């Protein structure tokens, strides 16, 4: 979302740090995300007063208190709806929704999909730790089937939501995934989301070291990381592995993991295309499937008509068509009479 950058004062990280003590548990993945946001925001070229952070309820939703920008810590699940009102009232603002897997996909699932389908120019950062942290450890809508928690002592019975697939299903115009520990990549996703015109959806794998420690460990520990992460690069073949010796090949419509070597070369691999919804959906479906690596990066990015821009055009059209509204004319109506 590129805003006009008139008289931008030179900003640095400290400009975005509020005077409030950060209260997440020591070691929480949220710290890493906050740090990257504070680091990258001065470089976005937007005046600080134009930023608004809107959150719902949950650990991650405390985020706005720690950013020295405009912020609104609202009610459970409703951040996307409140952010929509903020953006529609003042499209000049750079609006960021901070939410979690429960907030955005359970209690607020409806608002999330509708925000994305409308394509308001709002950025959604979904901190996915696959657990309920603030309420102390119940399973979440992204917890894997059979998750044993306080509320599911014999294992959870509901299949998990896949956030990127849900966003793609709602036809979000920008869908990406990041990991809290991969700071450079996370910064780059924040920057991409910011520069995208339309709704941006970033799922951030975030470790809850108290209630779901190690949920994403295969993707972050040295021994397994290379085999478990598929870094997405636009127009590049889908290659992964410590030796970059594995790739994703399409066998008909079915994706397969193949070894690069005698039988297959990189030329046989599927080439990522950020504008191809089918590829994005296919990659998204790797989630929760052990035989596949987890795609990290931009799944999908296309330009679609933007809601608030179209609303503004309607207002201009109506003014041109009917003339600027005149209150007395409206009150008089077309059918009035005078009593002497």
């Amino acid at each position, binding site marked *: 979302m590129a805003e006009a950058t008139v008289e931008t004062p030179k900003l640095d990280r400290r400009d975005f740090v509020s005077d409030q003590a950060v209260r997440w548990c020591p070691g929480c993945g949220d710290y890493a995300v906050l740090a990257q946001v504070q680091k990258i925001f001065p470089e976005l070229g937007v005046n600080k007063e134009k930023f608004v952070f809107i959150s719902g309820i949950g650990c991650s939703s405390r985020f706005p208190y720690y950013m020295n920008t405009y912020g609104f810590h609202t009610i459970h699940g409703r951040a996307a*709806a409140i952010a929509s009102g903020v953006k529609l009232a003042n499209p000049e603002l750079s609006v960021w929704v901070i939410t979690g897997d429960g907030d955005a996909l359970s209690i607020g699932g*409806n608002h999330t999909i509708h925000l994305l389908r409308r394509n308001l120019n709002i950025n959604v950062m979904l901190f996915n730790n696959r657990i309920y942290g603030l309420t102390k450890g119940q399973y979440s809508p992204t917890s894997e089937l059979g998750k044993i928690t306080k509320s599911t002592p014999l294992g959870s019975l509901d299949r998990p939501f896949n956030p990127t697939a849900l966003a793609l299903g709602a036809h979000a115009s920008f869908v990406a995934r990041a990991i809290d520990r991969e700071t450079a990549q996370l910064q780059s996703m924040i920057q991409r989301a910011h520069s995208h015109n339309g709704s941006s959806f970033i799922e951030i794998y975030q470790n809850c070291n108290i209630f779901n420690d190690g949920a994403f460990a295969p993707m972050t520990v040295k021994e397994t990381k290379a085999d478990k992460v598929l870094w997405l690069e636009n127009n590049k073949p889908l290659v992964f592995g410590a030796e970059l010796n594995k790739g994703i090949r399409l066998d008909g419509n079915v994706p397969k993991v193949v070894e690069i070597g005698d039988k297959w070369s990189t030329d046989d691999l599927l080439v990522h295309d950020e504008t191809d919804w089918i590829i994005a959906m296919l990659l998204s479906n790797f989630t929760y499937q052990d035989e596949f690596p987890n795609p990290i990066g931009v799944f999908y990015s296309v330009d679609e008509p933007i809601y608030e821009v179209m609303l503004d055009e309607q207002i201009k059209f109506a003014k041109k068509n009917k003339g600027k509204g005149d209150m007395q004319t409206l009150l008089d109506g077309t059918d009035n009479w005078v009593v002497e």
Partner: protein
Amino acid sequence: MIRFAGDSGDGMQLTGTRFTETTAIVGNDLSTLPDYPAEIRAPAGSLAGVSAFQLHFSSKDIHTPGDQPDVLVAMNPAALKVHLADLMPGGIIITNESAFSPKNLKLAGYESNPLEDDKLDSYELYSIEMSRLVATACEDMDISPKTVERTKNMFALGILYWIYNRPLEPTINWLGVKFKKRPELIDSNIRALNAGYNYGDTVEIFTTRFAVEKAPLAAGKYRNINGNFATSAGLLAASEKANIPLFYGGYPITPASDILHSLASFRHFGVKTFQAEDEIAGISSAIGASFAGNIGVTASSGPGIALKSEAIGLAVIAELPLVIVNVQRGGPSTGLPTKTEQADLFQALYGRNGEAPVPVIAAQTPGDCFYAAFEACQVAIKYRTPVFMLSDGYLANGSEPWSIPNFDDLPNIHPDFYDNKNGTPFMPYARDDKTLARPWATPGTRGLEHRIGGLEKEDMTGNVSYDPENHHHMTELRAQKVANITEDIPPTEILGSTSGDLLILSWGGTYGSCRSATERLQNENNRVSLVHLRWLNPLPKDLGEILIRFKNVLIPELNMGQLSKIIRADYLVDAQGLNHVRGRPLRAADIVTKAQKLIG
């Protein structure tokens, strides 16, 4: 009163007769006035060929067929043209859209289609493709299209049976006898009748109308206005006077949807309407818009308001301007969507968690919805608080002649956005000495970056605070802020003497009945006065001293005694209620009877 009008071949006399028979069966008194065309074979679709049947019915004695029908069934453009002038303001028009062809429009002398221009804006129009719908209802039958077409009068009759809650059986039995030898006609007519009845149910045609007693009007310019349009115009007028955009977030619900429709047609004023994914998103988006400096508004009816409760609490603690319109209908739950009621007073006053005071204003007539909506915005902006405006289905859909205000005479509203000119550290929860309102600093203003939210706020700084003393203090501040609104409420008007044997105390849409009853009692030399409340929270500060000057207090309400309980609790007055929830307005006669009982 209903008037059926159509081409002489449309079966209007028959339709009228059937409705009459059924109405007689349910025990209403009635009077009818058939109006056949002189030229029984006048050309189809022409003005001369219009046949009509008028029926006036009531549970009271009726001596005339009445002057103005409430409902006009116009089966073609000619019928509309001939009978529209008689229809009461804001009445229901039911038309067969299929008959509004260019040829028929021309025959009736219409230059443009009245169903498509704004000529019928002040009526409640149901333009229905009856010909197509009856054809669909009978599509698997082996009968001619012409025969099917002729069942459309039964479709129209079905709609009226729904509106007036009449049984279908008498007509079904009659059809059985009449077409004994042609079973296919029994079947097709019954299908059309049922289809019409189900149509009325599905589109939730509102069934209680606002009745205006004929009274001489003061000099001035008038128009007819219904409550929902007046509400929309009042909201817009306030936004224009405050010079800030109006943002409306809402979700369709009977009987409030017309507010969304009207506001959506005000795009040329810059109004932003947002049909949200649900009731919660409707109010949430409005809160977001208010945070960003618009006047945020949402409207709904009881079930939708219930969904919005948590967000209203957020607006209370965030201390942002917001207007919530509740067009009340029968409850609980889905209840009676098309019937009026006043049973959401407690919901407006108390329907939230925690100590969450919200000002509540109630409109008293359709035209008064304009002023109530305007005042709700004034208070919301001045005190930085959500405000409830209570309307009801009866006011919303009812029309009355309305003295058109001069827009320039309405007061300006001052949003007074905080701009930090003096450069001192910004305190988002500092307060105005007089109103206790906090500063409204909108995103985009340099140097005023701050965070608000639903967690308890520390006094002055607005930082999150769990301090027990601070919570108690903030709770008192929020209550005092709402209480301070009494300073803006003018002295209470008393219709009648300032003391006496009985005070009738009313609020909202029962104003008309209570006023009529009071005047009747006064004319019979009873010492009776009327006070009609506009603000239900806070109550006017002079109310207590008025109440004690009367020997009896009677509170008529379309609920089981909600205002009565408040008055009894707040003023320790032995107020008596007159309560019913039968989905129709209170009758002045019932109020008079109850009053006479009280004063002996």
